[in-house]
């Protein structure tokens, strides 16, 4: 445990702060994509409110695909990954810690950004709260499942588009439940069911994804 905290958690945190600008890029992308919608569709407040939850979530998924790529990329190419695998620690635990750090530095800021996005797309306070909750529950799921595909494609020279092809269909249920939660909030309806389902998917991913990531990384090493 100590080795994980000192060896991986602190290291990745230190690296994240040193590469702040690279971390900010997906967030800026998110902001810009969301700006495109009012410009492309028209700034009618009712329309924006109707498409808002979907737009924010689609943009979040797309920007997560951009952010995800750097999760194992540097470690793979500079050989750190080999050293992790020979450290005697469980690769699944190492992968879980790395995904945690990645979530903290690239998705948590997104949740902090969301009031601004809600403002842009004319969301009500209820919708905003629901959006925040779905983001907090849903983005760890994006990280965990995404990390499996990143582990598989990390050794490929041009893995970027492939990563998107692999992950977009897998993220569709999350998109459906998350936007439906926000839509329900707009109508003052309860949305606990949707949150519960997202939570259940998150639990499933937390229990199984680290092992899948570990296996994926081993396959990539071969």
């Amino acid at each position: 445990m100590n080795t994980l905290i000192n060896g991986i958690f602190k290291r990745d945190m230190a690296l994240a702060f040193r590469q702040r600008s690279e971390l900010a890029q997906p967030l800026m992308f998110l902001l810009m994509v969301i700006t495109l919608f009012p410009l492309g569709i028209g700034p009618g407040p009712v329309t924006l409110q109707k498409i808002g939850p979907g737009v924010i979530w689609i943009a979040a998924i797309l920007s997560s695909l951009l952010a995800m790529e750097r999760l194992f990329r540097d470690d793979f190419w500079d050989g750190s990954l080999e050293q992790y695998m020979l450290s005697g620690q469980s690769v699944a635990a190492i992968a879980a810690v790395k995904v945690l750090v990645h979530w903290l530095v690239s998705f948590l800021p997104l949740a902090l950004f969301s009031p601004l996005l809600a403002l842009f797309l004319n969301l009500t306070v209820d919708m905003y709260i629901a959006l925040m909750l779905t983001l907090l529950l849903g983005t760890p799921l994006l990280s965990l499942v995404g990390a499996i595909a990143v582990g598989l494609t990390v050794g490929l020279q041009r893995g970027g588009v492939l990563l998107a092809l692999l992950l977009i269909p897998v993220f569709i249920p999350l998109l459906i439940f998350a936007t439906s939660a926000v839509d329900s909030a707009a109508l003052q309806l309860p949305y606990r069911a949707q949150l519960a389902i997202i939570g259940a998917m998150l639990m499933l991913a937390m229990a199984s994804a680290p092992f899948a990531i570990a296996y994926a990384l081993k396959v990539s090493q071969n």
Partner: protein
Amino acid sequence: MAGLAADNLTCIKRDRVLFTDLSFCLSPGQLIYLRGPNGAGKTSLLRILTGLSAPESGQLMLNEEPLDKVRDRFNQQLIYVGHKAGINGALTAMENLRFWCAQHSTDFNAQQAYEVLARLGLVGLEDVPVRMLSAGQQRRVALSRLWLKQAIYWILDEPFTALDTDGIELLETHMREHVANQGAIITTSHQPLSKHAGPFTELALEYRL
């Protein structure tokens, strides 16, 4: 046969047979110099020995036990320096070593790390991001692990790449001392080992089609 024994290893990479039925033993107190032309499978063999990749057939034994059963114990006694240095360019030399030691459950002593880096000729470069250093200096940072972690087995893939003559001599001397202290080393190298490395066994791989 104490030590790391390879039993009838066969390796096939991308449909090419690199070697078949290769058996040898790496015992404490032994230095094996793995020789062979490009593409003969030296790196593949070393990666199989570390457990990073799996052989097509055959198995590895550590002190007469299947290696898969005692993988954790083996990892504690192993240092692998590969083609890729395993050094992150954005971190400083000291940070790289500190995190590496933490990952490998090795006590890290800053004083000792400074001394090792000094011995490797990196005085004043300890707190500079590693990507600012030259290729040879980066290689020295990677190799400083050999001074920091106590381990029996060293698996070194082209450790002399980018090193100058002083660096090569330093490393060869360290290798000789390690073997004298019942260490076991298997290494590849483009140029033959010099007398500083002490006595060694040669293992030759051929390029085959």
